[in-house]
Protein backbone atom coordinates (compact mmCIF):
# COMPACT_ATOMS: atom_id res chain seq x y z
CA UNK A 1 0.00 0.00 0.00
CA UNK A 2 1.42 3.30 -1.01
CA UNK A 3 -0.49 5.17 1.67
CA UNK A 4 1.46 3.62 4.47
CA UNK A 5 4.68 5.22 3.27
CA UNK A 6 3.21 8.68 3.19
CA UNK A 7 4.40 9.70 6.61
CA UNK A 8 8.14 9.70 6.42
CA UNK A 9 10.64 10.09 9.23
CA UNK A 10 11.50 13.77 9.41
CA UNK A 11 15.09 13.41 8.29
CA UNK A 12 14.10 11.87 4.95
CA UNK A 13 12.60 14.20 2.39
CA UNK A 14 10.41 12.67 -0.28
CA UNK A 15 9.30 14.91 -3.08
CA UNK A 16 5.77 13.47 -3.25
CA UNK A 17 5.11 13.93 0.45
CA UNK A 18 4.26 16.95 2.48
CA UNK A 19 6.63 17.90 5.28
CA UNK A 20 5.76 15.97 8.42
CA UNK A 21 4.59 19.05 10.24
CA UNK A 22 2.09 19.92 7.48
CA UNK A 23 0.71 16.38 7.58
CA UNK A 24 0.31 16.62 11.35
CA UNK A 25 -1.50 19.92 11.14
CA UNK A 26 -3.87 18.63 8.47
CA UNK A 27 -4.67 15.53 10.50
CA UNK A 28 -5.27 17.70 13.56
CA UNK A 29 -7.64 19.99 11.66
CA UNK A 30 -9.59 17.04 10.23
CA UNK A 31 -9.88 15.32 13.58
CA UNK A 32 -10.94 18.50 15.36
CA UNK A 33 -13.65 19.23 12.80
CA UNK A 34 -14.96 15.66 12.95
CA UNK A 35 -14.85 15.58 16.74
CA UNK A 36 -16.75 18.87 16.96
CA UNK A 37 -19.46 18.02 14.44
CA UNK A 38 -19.78 14.25 14.71
CA UNK A 39 -18.10 12.91 17.82
CA UNK A 40 -19.44 15.40 20.32
CA UNK A 41 -23.12 15.24 19.25
CA UNK A 42 -23.00 11.45 19.19
CA UNK A 43 -21.54 11.35 22.66
CA UNK A 44 -24.01 13.99 23.88
CA UNK A 45 -27.05 11.91 22.86
CA UNK A 46 -26.01 9.00 25.04
CA UNK A 47 -24.76 11.24 27.83
CA UNK A 48 -28.05 13.12 28.05
CA UNK A 49 -30.02 9.88 27.85
CA UNK A 50 -28.12 8.03 30.56
CA UNK A 51 -26.83 10.98 32.60
CA UNK A 52 -29.72 10.83 35.06
CA UNK A 53 -29.42 7.09 35.55
CA UNK A 54 -30.78 3.89 34.07
CA UNK A 55 -34.04 4.21 35.93
CA UNK A 56 -35.24 7.26 34.05
CA UNK A 57 -33.84 5.93 30.81
CA UNK A 58 -35.76 2.68 30.96
CA UNK A 59 -38.86 4.44 32.15
CA UNK A 60 -38.86 6.63 29.05
CA UNK A 61 -38.56 3.57 26.85
CA UNK A 62 -41.28 1.67 28.71
CA UNK A 63 -43.79 4.45 28.15
CA UNK A 64 -46.68 2.99 26.10
CA UNK A 65 -46.56 5.94 23.72
CA UNK A 66 -42.93 5.19 23.02
CA UNK A 67 -43.84 1.56 22.44
CA UNK A 68 -46.54 2.37 19.92
CA UNK A 69 -44.18 4.83 18.17
CA UNK A 70 -41.58 2.09 17.85
CA UNK A 71 -44.22 -0.27 16.53
CA UNK A 72 -45.38 2.22 13.89
CA UNK A 73 -41.82 2.97 12.78
CA UNK A 74 -41.15 -0.75 12.38
CA UNK A 75 -44.36 -1.21 10.38
CA UNK A 76 -43.56 1.70 8.05
CA UNK A 77 -40.05 0.37 7.41
CA UNK A 78 -41.31 -3.19 6.99
CA UNK A 79 -43.57 -2.06 4.17
CA UNK A 80 -41.40 0.63 2.56
CA UNK A 81 -38.16 -1.36 2.37
CA UNK A 82 -39.55 -4.47 0.60
CA UNK A 83 -41.64 -2.29 -1.75
CA UNK A 84 -38.59 -0.29 -2.78
CA UNK A 85 -36.53 -3.47 -2.94
CA UNK A 86 -38.84 -4.98 -5.55
CA UNK A 87 -38.93 -1.71 -7.41
CA UNK A 88 -35.14 -1.32 -7.26
CA UNK A 89 -34.49 -4.78 -8.67
CA UNK A 90 -37.07 -4.34 -11.45
CA UNK A 91 -35.74 -0.92 -12.42
CA UNK A 92 -32.12 -2.05 -12.35
CA UNK A 93 -32.94 -5.15 -14.41
CA UNK A 94 -34.63 -3.06 -17.10
CA UNK A 95 -31.98 -0.35 -17.11
CA UNK A 96 -28.81 -2.42 -16.80
CA UNK A 97 -29.63 -5.41 -18.98
CA UNK A 98 -31.47 -3.74 -21.89
CA UNK A 99 -30.97 -0.90 -24.33
CA UNK A 100 -33.98 1.35 -24.79
CA UNK A 101 -34.91 4.93 -25.50
CA UNK A 102 -35.31 7.36 -22.64
CA UNK A 103 -33.10 5.38 -20.28
CA UNK A 104 -31.21 8.42 -19.02
CA UNK A 105 -34.44 10.29 -18.38
CA UNK A 106 -35.70 7.33 -16.37
CA UNK A 107 -32.54 7.27 -14.24
CA UNK A 108 -32.95 10.99 -13.52
CA UNK A 109 -36.61 10.54 -12.58
CA UNK A 110 -35.74 7.74 -10.17
CA UNK A 111 -33.37 10.11 -8.36
CA UNK A 112 -36.04 12.80 -8.14
CA UNK A 113 -37.24 12.15 -4.55
CA UNK A 114 -33.71 12.93 -3.31
CA UNK A 115 -34.04 16.42 -4.74
CA UNK A 116 -37.34 17.13 -3.05
CA UNK A 117 -37.39 18.69 0.42
CA UNK A 118 -38.85 16.29 3.01
CA UNK A 119 -41.52 18.82 3.88
CA UNK A 120 -42.57 19.11 0.23
CA UNK A 121 -42.58 15.30 -0.04
CA UNK A 122 -45.13 15.12 2.73
CA UNK A 123 -47.11 18.04 1.39
CA UNK A 124 -47.73 16.57 -2.08
CA UNK A 125 -49.51 13.65 -0.44
CA UNK A 126 -51.62 16.03 1.59
CA UNK A 127 -52.54 17.81 -1.64
CA UNK A 128 -53.56 14.46 -3.17
CA UNK A 129 -55.29 12.71 -0.30
CA UNK A 130 -55.94 15.41 2.30
CA UNK A 131 -59.44 16.59 3.21
CA UNK A 132 -59.14 19.48 0.75
CA UNK A 133 -57.06 17.44 -1.71
CA UNK A 134 -57.92 16.05 -5.12
CA UNK A 135 -59.11 12.71 -3.91
CA UNK A 136 -60.10 13.98 -0.48
CA UNK A 137 -63.87 14.16 -1.02
CA UNK A 138 -63.96 10.73 -2.67
CA UNK A 139 -61.90 9.19 0.14
CA UNK A 140 -64.17 10.76 2.76
CA UNK A 141 -67.25 9.39 1.04
CA UNK A 142 -65.81 5.92 1.26
CA UNK A 143 -64.58 6.50 4.77
CA UNK A 144 -60.93 5.95 3.90
CA UNK A 145 -58.44 7.96 5.88
CA UNK A 146 -54.92 8.20 4.45
CA UNK A 147 -53.62 11.52 5.71
CA UNK A 148 -53.14 11.95 9.47
CA UNK A 149 -53.24 8.15 9.54
CA UNK A 150 -50.89 5.20 9.19
CA UNK A 151 -51.25 4.67 5.38
CA UNK A 152 -50.11 8.24 4.75
CA UNK A 153 -47.03 7.68 6.90
CA UNK A 154 -46.20 4.52 4.97
CA UNK A 155 -46.69 6.27 1.63
CA UNK A 156 -44.39 9.20 2.36
CA UNK A 157 -41.82 6.82 3.81
CA UNK A 158 -41.87 4.93 0.52
CA UNK A 159 -41.47 8.24 -1.32
CA UNK A 160 -38.45 9.52 0.60
CA UNK A 161 -36.64 6.16 0.45
CA UNK A 162 -37.68 5.51 -3.15
CA UNK A 163 -34.26 5.80 -4.91
CA UNK A 164 -31.98 4.10 -2.34
CA UNK A 165 -31.94 0.51 -3.57
CA UNK A 166 -32.35 1.30 -7.27
CA UNK A 167 -29.40 3.67 -7.31
CA UNK A 168 -27.16 1.08 -5.63
CA UNK A 169 -28.16 -1.66 -8.05
CA UNK A 170 -28.19 0.22 -11.36
CA UNK A 171 -24.46 1.03 -11.56
CA UNK A 172 -23.55 -2.36 -10.07
CA UNK A 173 -25.56 -4.32 -12.60
CA UNK A 174 -24.41 -2.10 -15.43
CA UNK A 175 -20.81 -2.81 -14.50
CA UNK A 176 -21.44 -6.55 -14.35
CA UNK A 177 -22.88 -6.55 -17.86
CA UNK A 178 -25.07 -9.33 -19.16
CA UNK A 179 -22.47 -11.90 -20.23
CA UNK A 180 -23.22 -14.30 -17.40
CA UNK A 181 -26.98 -14.07 -17.96
CA UNK A 182 -26.52 -14.69 -21.68
CA UNK A 183 -24.32 -17.67 -20.92
CA UNK A 184 -27.01 -19.06 -18.62
CA UNK A 185 -29.71 -18.62 -21.26
CA UNK A 186 -27.54 -20.25 -23.93
CA UNK A 187 -27.12 -23.20 -21.55
CA UNK A 188 -30.89 -23.57 -21.45
CA UNK A 189 -31.84 -21.69 -18.26
CA UNK A 190 -35.25 -20.01 -18.13
CA UNK A 191 -35.66 -16.35 -17.25
CA UNK A 192 -36.42 -16.96 -13.57
CA UNK A 193 -33.67 -19.58 -13.29
CA UNK A 194 -31.22 -17.05 -14.72
CA UNK A 195 -32.43 -14.36 -12.34
CA UNK A 196 -32.36 -16.43 -9.16
CA UNK A 197 -29.25 -18.49 -9.84
CA UNK A 198 -27.03 -15.97 -11.62
CA UNK A 199 -28.19 -12.39 -11.09
CA UNK A 200 -29.24 -12.49 -7.44
CA UNK A 201 -26.01 -14.10 -6.13
CA UNK A 202 -24.02 -11.50 -8.06
CA UNK A 203 -25.87 -8.49 -6.67
CA UNK A 204 -26.49 -9.68 -3.13
CA UNK A 205 -24.02 -7.32 -1.45
CA UNK A 206 -25.20 -4.30 -3.40
CA UNK A 207 -28.74 -5.27 -2.54
CA UNK A 208 -27.95 -5.54 1.14
CA UNK A 209 -26.14 -2.20 1.07
CA UNK A 210 -29.16 -0.52 -0.47
CA UNK A 211 -31.49 -2.16 2.04
CA UNK A 212 -29.37 -0.95 4.97
CA UNK A 213 -29.40 2.67 3.77
CA UNK A 214 -33.06 2.50 2.82
CA UNK A 215 -34.00 1.13 6.21
CA UNK A 216 -32.03 3.80 8.10
CA UNK A 217 -33.81 6.55 6.25
CA UNK A 218 -37.20 4.86 6.53
CA UNK A 219 -36.92 4.61 10.31
CA UNK A 220 -35.40 8.04 10.78
CA UNK A 221 -37.45 10.23 8.44
CA UNK A 222 -38.85 13.25 10.21
CA UNK A 223 -39.93 16.14 8.01
CA UNK A 224 -42.10 14.28 5.51
CA UNK A 225 -43.73 12.06 8.09
CA UNK A 226 -44.34 15.04 10.36
CA UNK A 227 -46.44 16.74 7.67
CA UNK A 228 -48.79 13.80 7.10
CA UNK A 229 -48.91 12.33 10.59
CA UNK A 230 -51.13 14.68 12.52
CA UNK A 231 -49.10 13.85 15.64
CA UNK A 232 -51.71 11.77 17.36
CA UNK A 233 -50.03 10.23 20.37
CA UNK A 234 -50.11 6.48 20.50
CA UNK A 235 -51.66 6.42 17.04
CA UNK A 236 -49.72 8.19 14.31
CA UNK A 237 -46.44 8.96 16.02
CA UNK A 238 -43.24 7.47 14.73
CA UNK A 239 -40.12 7.39 16.88
CA UNK A 240 -38.61 10.63 15.50
CA UNK A 241 -41.94 12.40 15.98
CA UNK A 242 -42.17 11.09 19.52
CA UNK A 243 -38.71 12.55 20.19
CA UNK A 244 -39.92 15.93 18.97
CA UNK A 245 -42.98 15.89 21.20
CA UNK A 246 -40.99 14.94 24.30
CA UNK A 247 -38.40 17.63 23.54
CA UNK A 248 -41.05 20.29 23.04
CA UNK A 249 -42.54 19.32 26.41
CA UNK A 250 -39.12 19.97 27.96
CA UNK A 251 -38.95 16.31 28.92
CA UNK A 252 -35.31 16.21 27.87
CA UNK A 253 -34.29 12.96 29.53
CA UNK A 254 -37.09 11.06 27.86
CA UNK A 255 -36.46 12.81 24.54
CA UNK A 256 -32.79 11.85 24.55
CA UNK A 257 -33.56 8.37 25.81
CA UNK A 258 -35.78 7.67 22.82
CA UNK A 259 -33.32 9.54 20.57
CA UNK A 260 -30.56 7.25 21.79
CA UNK A 261 -32.44 4.34 20.21
CA UNK A 262 -32.26 6.11 16.87
CA UNK A 263 -28.59 6.95 17.42
CA UNK A 264 -27.99 3.28 18.13
CA UNK A 265 -29.76 2.44 14.89
CA UNK A 266 -27.43 4.87 13.11
CA UNK A 267 -24.37 3.21 14.61
CA UNK A 268 -25.61 -0.24 13.64
CA UNK A 269 -26.26 1.08 10.14
CA UNK A 270 -22.72 2.41 9.89
CA UNK A 271 -21.30 -0.85 11.16
CA UNK A 272 -23.35 -2.96 8.75
CA UNK A 273 -22.41 -0.64 5.92
CA UNK A 274 -18.72 -0.96 6.74
CA UNK A 275 -18.98 -4.74 6.89
CA UNK A 276 -20.66 -4.88 3.48
CA UNK A 277 -18.08 -2.50 2.01
CA UNK A 278 -15.32 -4.70 3.42
CA UNK A 279 -16.88 -7.83 1.95
CA UNK A 280 -17.29 -6.20 -1.45
CA UNK A 281 -13.68 -5.06 -1.44
CA UNK A 282 -12.55 -8.56 -0.48
CA UNK A 283 -14.65 -10.14 -3.21
CA UNK A 284 -13.43 -7.76 -5.87
CA UNK A 285 -9.83 -8.42 -4.87
CA UNK A 286 -10.13 -12.13 -5.62
CA UNK A 287 -11.77 -11.44 -8.97
CA UNK A 288 -9.31 -9.67 -11.23
CA UNK A 289 -11.15 -7.76 -13.92
CA UNK A 290 -8.44 -7.59 -16.57
CA UNK A 291 -8.09 -11.19 -17.56
CA UNK A 292 -4.77 -11.16 -19.38
CA UNK A 293 -2.30 -13.28 -17.55
Amino acid at each position, binding site marked *: MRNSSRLQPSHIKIATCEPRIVARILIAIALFYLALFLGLPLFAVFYEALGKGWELYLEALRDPDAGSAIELTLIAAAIAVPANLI*FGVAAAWAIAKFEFRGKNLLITLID*LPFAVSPVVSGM*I*YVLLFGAQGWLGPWLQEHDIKLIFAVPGIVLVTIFVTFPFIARELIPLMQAQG*KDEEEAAVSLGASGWQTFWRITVPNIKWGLLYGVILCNARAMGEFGAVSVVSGHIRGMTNTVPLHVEILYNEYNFVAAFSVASLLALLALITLLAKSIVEYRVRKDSQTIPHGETE
Partner: protein
Amino acid sequence: MLKLKEHSVLPGFNLALGFTLLYLSLIVLIPLSSLFFKTATSGWDNFWEIVTNERVLASLRVTFFSSLIAAALNAIFGLVIAWVLTRYTFPGKRLIDALVDLPFALPTAVAGITLAMLYAPNGWIGHYFAEYDIKIAYTPLGIVIALTFIGLPFVVRTVQPVLEEMESEAEEAAACLGASRWNTVLRVIFPSIYPALLTGFALAFARSIGEYGSVIFIAGNMPFISEIAPLLIVAKLEQYDYAGATAIALVMLLISFMLLLIINGLQGWSNRRGMK
Protein backbone atom coordinates in the same frame (compact mmCIF):
# COMPACT_ATOMS: atom_id res chain seq x y z
CA MET B 1 -35.81 4.12 -37.74
CA LEU B 2 -37.79 4.53 -34.55
CA LYS B 3 -37.17 1.61 -32.32
CA LEU B 4 -37.93 1.61 -28.64
CA LYS B 5 -35.64 -1.20 -27.60
CA GLU B 6 -32.80 -3.27 -28.99
CA HIS B 7 -33.44 -6.99 -29.11
CA SER B 8 -32.07 -9.07 -26.25
CA VAL B 9 -32.24 -12.75 -25.36
CA LEU B 10 -32.83 -11.94 -21.72
CA PRO B 11 -36.50 -12.03 -20.75
CA GLY B 12 -38.50 -9.84 -18.42
CA PHE B 13 -37.99 -6.45 -20.03
CA ASN B 14 -41.68 -5.66 -20.40
CA LEU B 15 -42.50 -6.82 -16.89
CA ALA B 16 -39.57 -4.99 -15.29
CA LEU B 17 -39.98 -1.74 -17.18
CA GLY B 18 -43.76 -1.82 -16.89
CA PHE B 19 -43.60 -2.23 -13.14
CA THR B 20 -40.90 0.43 -12.86
CA LEU B 21 -42.95 2.99 -14.76
CA LEU B 22 -46.16 2.18 -12.91
CA TYR B 23 -44.50 2.43 -9.50
CA LEU B 24 -42.60 5.56 -10.47
CA SER B 25 -45.80 7.21 -11.68
CA LEU B 26 -47.89 6.27 -8.64
CA ILE B 27 -45.33 7.10 -5.97
CA VAL B 28 -43.42 10.00 -7.48
CA LEU B 29 -44.73 11.55 -10.69
CA ILE B 30 -48.45 11.86 -9.96
CA PRO B 31 -48.01 13.19 -6.40
CA LEU B 32 -45.37 15.67 -7.59
CA SER B 33 -47.53 16.88 -10.45
CA SER B 34 -50.27 17.72 -7.95
CA LEU B 35 -48.07 20.62 -6.90
CA PHE B 36 -48.15 22.14 -10.38
CA PHE B 37 -51.88 21.61 -10.80
CA LYS B 38 -52.65 23.08 -7.41
CA THR B 39 -50.63 26.18 -8.28
CA ALA B 40 -52.27 26.42 -11.68
CA THR B 41 -55.78 26.20 -10.21
CA SER B 42 -55.11 28.85 -7.57
CA GLY B 43 -53.92 31.19 -10.32
CA TRP B 44 -50.52 32.62 -11.13
CA ASP B 45 -51.32 36.10 -9.79
CA ASN B 46 -52.02 34.55 -6.45
CA PHE B 47 -48.79 32.55 -6.72
CA TRP B 48 -46.77 35.67 -7.45
CA GLU B 49 -48.34 37.54 -4.57
CA ILE B 50 -47.47 34.76 -2.12
CA VAL B 51 -43.88 34.25 -3.15
CA THR B 52 -43.10 37.98 -3.21
CA ASN B 53 -44.43 38.40 0.30
CA GLU B 54 -41.74 39.89 2.57
CA ARG B 55 -41.78 37.05 5.08
CA VAL B 56 -41.54 34.40 2.34
CA LEU B 57 -38.67 36.19 0.64
CA ALA B 58 -36.89 36.54 3.97
CA SER B 59 -37.25 32.82 4.68
CA LEU B 60 -35.91 31.94 1.22
CA ARG B 61 -33.00 34.31 1.82
CA VAL B 62 -32.19 32.74 5.19
CA THR B 63 -32.39 29.25 3.69
CA PHE B 64 -30.22 30.16 0.71
CA PHE B 65 -27.44 31.97 2.56
CA SER B 66 -27.13 29.59 5.48
CA SER B 67 -26.98 26.68 3.01
CA LEU B 68 -24.30 28.49 1.05
CA ILE B 69 -22.15 29.17 4.10
CA ALA B 70 -22.57 25.62 5.42
CA ALA B 71 -21.69 24.09 2.03
CA ALA B 72 -18.64 26.35 1.74
CA LEU B 73 -17.45 25.31 5.22
CA ASN B 74 -17.88 21.68 4.28
CA ALA B 75 -16.07 22.17 0.98
CA ILE B 76 -12.97 23.43 2.79
CA PHE B 77 -12.97 21.00 5.70
CA GLY B 78 -14.34 18.14 3.64
CA LEU B 79 -11.38 18.49 1.31
CA VAL B 80 -8.98 18.37 4.25
CA ILE B 81 -10.74 15.30 5.69
CA ALA B 82 -10.74 13.50 2.33
CA TRP B 83 -7.06 14.29 1.91
CA VAL B 84 -6.14 13.11 5.38
CA LEU B 85 -8.16 9.90 4.98
CA THR B 86 -6.55 8.96 1.66
CA ARG B 87 -3.00 10.15 2.14
CA TYR B 88 -2.01 9.58 5.75
CA THR B 89 -2.17 6.76 8.21
CA PHE B 90 -2.99 7.34 11.85
CA PRO B 91 -4.59 5.30 14.60
CA GLY B 92 -8.36 4.97 14.38
CA LYS B 93 -8.47 5.98 10.73
CA ARG B 94 -10.91 3.29 9.67
CA LEU B 95 -13.27 4.09 12.51
CA ILE B 96 -13.23 7.75 11.58
CA ASP B 97 -13.73 6.90 7.92
CA ALA B 98 -16.88 5.00 8.83
CA LEU B 99 -18.06 7.76 11.16
CA VAL B 100 -18.04 10.35 8.36
CA ASP B 101 -21.35 8.91 7.14
CA LEU B 102 -23.05 9.48 10.51
CA PRO B 103 -25.12 12.44 9.26
CA PHE B 104 -26.56 10.15 6.57
CA ALA B 105 -27.51 7.55 9.14
CA LEU B 106 -28.55 9.65 12.12
CA PRO B 107 -32.20 10.75 11.98
CA THR B 108 -32.41 14.49 11.53
CA ALA B 109 -34.61 15.00 14.58
CA VAL B 110 -31.92 13.46 16.79
CA ALA B 111 -29.28 15.68 15.24
CA GLY B 112 -31.58 18.67 15.72
CA ILE B 113 -32.27 18.27 19.42
CA THR B 114 -28.65 17.34 20.18
CA LEU B 115 -27.16 20.34 18.37
CA ALA B 116 -29.74 22.64 19.96
CA MET B 117 -28.78 21.31 23.36
CA LEU B 118 -25.03 21.67 22.71
CA TYR B 119 -25.18 25.20 21.33
CA ALA B 120 -27.82 26.65 23.64
CA PRO B 121 -26.51 29.49 25.84
CA ASN B 122 -26.21 27.05 28.75
CA GLY B 123 -25.05 24.14 26.58
CA TRP B 124 -21.64 22.47 26.49
CA ILE B 125 -20.39 24.62 23.64
CA GLY B 126 -22.88 27.46 23.82
CA HIS B 127 -21.83 28.64 27.28
CA TYR B 128 -18.27 29.40 26.10
CA PHE B 129 -19.72 31.73 23.49
CA ALA B 130 -22.33 33.12 25.88
CA GLU B 131 -19.50 34.56 27.95
CA TYR B 132 -18.70 36.81 25.00
CA ASP B 133 -22.37 37.54 24.39
CA ILE B 134 -22.48 35.42 21.26
CA LYS B 135 -25.64 33.44 20.74
CA ILE B 136 -25.48 30.45 18.43
CA ALA B 137 -28.65 28.46 19.01
CA TYR B 138 -31.89 30.27 18.12
CA THR B 139 -30.06 32.53 15.61
CA PRO B 140 -29.09 32.13 11.92
CA LEU B 141 -25.71 30.92 13.20
CA GLY B 142 -27.48 27.88 14.65
CA ILE B 143 -29.00 27.13 11.26
CA VAL B 144 -25.53 27.14 9.73
CA ILE B 145 -24.32 24.72 12.43
CA ALA B 146 -27.16 22.28 11.72
CA LEU B 147 -26.69 22.48 7.96
CA THR B 148 -22.95 21.98 8.32
CA PHE B 149 -23.63 18.79 10.25
CA ILE B 150 -25.98 17.26 7.69
CA GLY B 151 -23.86 18.34 4.69
CA LEU B 152 -20.56 17.06 6.06
CA PRO B 153 -20.30 13.70 4.24
CA PHE B 154 -21.02 14.98 0.73
CA VAL B 155 -17.71 16.64 -0.11
CA VAL B 156 -15.67 13.96 1.65
CA ARG B 157 -17.44 11.17 -0.23
CA THR B 158 -17.17 12.78 -3.66
CA VAL B 159 -13.54 13.88 -3.35
CA GLN B 160 -12.21 10.77 -1.58
CA PRO B 161 -12.57 8.30 -4.49
CA VAL B 162 -10.99 10.76 -6.92
CA LEU B 163 -7.99 11.18 -4.62
CA GLU B 164 -7.74 7.42 -4.19
CA GLU B 165 -7.75 6.69 -7.89
CA MET B 166 -5.43 9.50 -8.84
CA GLU B 167 -2.27 8.25 -10.48
CA SER B 168 0.68 8.82 -8.23
CA GLU B 169 2.71 9.01 -11.43
CA ALA B 170 1.42 12.47 -12.22
CA GLU B 171 2.67 13.72 -8.85
CA GLU B 172 5.98 11.96 -9.28
CA ALA B 173 6.37 13.43 -12.74
CA ALA B 174 5.72 16.91 -11.38
CA ALA B 175 8.30 16.34 -8.64
CA CYS B 176 10.83 15.09 -11.19
CA LEU B 177 10.21 18.20 -13.26
CA GLY B 178 11.28 20.22 -10.26
CA ALA B 179 7.93 21.38 -8.89
CA SER B 180 7.79 22.02 -5.18
CA ARG B 181 5.25 20.01 -3.18
CA TRP B 182 3.03 23.05 -2.83
CA ASN B 183 3.18 23.67 -6.58
CA THR B 184 2.37 20.04 -7.30
CA VAL B 185 -0.65 20.16 -5.03
CA LEU B 186 -1.82 23.43 -6.54
CA ARG B 187 -1.23 22.70 -10.20
CA VAL B 188 -1.46 18.91 -10.54
CA ILE B 189 -3.66 17.56 -7.76
CA PHE B 190 -6.13 20.35 -7.20
CA PRO B 191 -7.22 20.74 -10.85
CA SER B 192 -8.08 17.07 -11.06
CA ILE B 193 -10.23 17.05 -7.91
CA TYR B 194 -11.84 20.42 -8.62
CA PRO B 195 -14.90 19.00 -10.45
CA ALA B 196 -15.52 16.46 -7.68
CA LEU B 197 -15.16 19.20 -5.06
CA LEU B 198 -17.74 21.35 -6.85
CA THR B 199 -20.08 18.36 -7.17
CA GLY B 200 -19.80 17.68 -3.45
CA PHE B 201 -20.42 21.33 -2.70
CA ALA B 202 -23.53 21.35 -4.89
CA LEU B 203 -24.85 18.14 -3.32
CA ALA B 204 -24.37 19.53 0.20
CA PHE B 205 -26.01 22.79 -0.83
CA ALA B 206 -29.00 21.01 -2.42
CA ARG B 207 -29.50 18.88 0.66
CA SER B 208 -29.32 21.95 2.93
CA ILE B 209 -31.91 23.91 0.93
CA GLY B 210 -34.64 21.38 1.73
CA GLU B 211 -33.50 20.41 5.22
CA TYR B 212 -36.08 20.63 7.98
CA GLY B 213 -35.67 18.24 10.90
CA SER B 214 -32.21 19.17 12.10
CA VAL B 215 -32.81 22.91 11.71
CA ILE B 216 -36.11 23.64 13.41
CA PHE B 217 -34.91 22.79 16.92
CA ILE B 218 -31.85 25.03 16.82
CA ALA B 219 -33.15 27.84 14.60
CA GLY B 220 -35.47 29.63 16.99
CA ASN B 221 -37.75 30.14 14.01
CA MET B 222 -38.16 33.89 14.26
CA PRO B 223 -39.91 35.31 11.20
CA PHE B 224 -37.58 37.45 9.03
CA ILE B 225 -34.51 36.35 10.99
CA SER B 226 -34.21 32.62 11.55
CA GLU B 227 -37.21 31.15 9.80
CA ILE B 228 -36.36 28.76 6.96
CA ALA B 229 -38.60 28.19 3.94
CA PRO B 230 -39.55 24.56 4.76
CA LEU B 231 -40.76 25.67 8.19
CA LEU B 232 -42.92 28.35 6.62
CA ILE B 233 -44.51 25.65 4.45
CA VAL B 234 -45.35 23.62 7.54
CA ALA B 235 -46.72 26.70 9.28
CA LYS B 236 -49.01 27.46 6.35
CA LEU B 237 -50.13 23.83 6.12
CA GLU B 238 -51.07 23.89 9.79
CA GLN B 239 -53.27 26.91 9.11
CA TYR B 240 -54.80 25.04 6.14
CA ASP B 241 -53.36 27.69 3.82
CA TYR B 242 -52.71 25.14 1.06
CA ALA B 243 -52.32 27.75 -1.68
CA GLY B 244 -49.61 29.53 0.28
CA ALA B 245 -47.78 26.33 1.15
CA THR B 246 -47.99 25.11 -2.44
CA ALA B 247 -46.55 28.31 -3.83
CA ILE B 248 -43.47 28.20 -1.59
CA ALA B 249 -43.09 24.48 -2.22
CA LEU B 250 -43.13 25.05 -5.95
CA VAL B 251 -40.39 27.65 -5.72
CA MET B 252 -38.30 25.26 -3.66
CA LEU B 253 -38.98 22.42 -6.06
CA LEU B 254 -37.84 24.52 -9.01
CA ILE B 255 -34.65 25.45 -7.15
CA SER B 256 -34.08 21.75 -6.41
CA PHE B 257 -34.58 20.78 -10.07
CA MET B 258 -32.13 23.44 -11.17
CA LEU B 259 -29.59 22.15 -8.68
CA LEU B 260 -30.22 18.60 -9.87
CA LEU B 261 -29.43 19.64 -13.44
CA ILE B 262 -26.29 21.45 -12.32
CA ILE B 263 -25.18 18.44 -10.28
CA ASN B 264 -25.76 16.08 -13.22
CA GLY B 265 -23.67 18.38 -15.39
CA LEU B 266 -20.92 18.56 -12.77
CA GLN B 267 -20.88 14.79 -12.36
CA GLY B 268 -20.57 14.35 -16.12
CA TRP B 269 -17.66 16.78 -16.09
CA SER B 270 -16.09 15.03 -13.13
CA ASN B 271 -16.39 11.62 -14.80
CA ARG B 272 -14.89 12.88 -18.04
CA ARG B 273 -11.96 14.29 -16.08
CA GLY B 274 -11.50 10.98 -14.36
CA MET B 275 -11.61 8.98 -17.60
CA LYS B 276 -8.28 10.13 -18.99
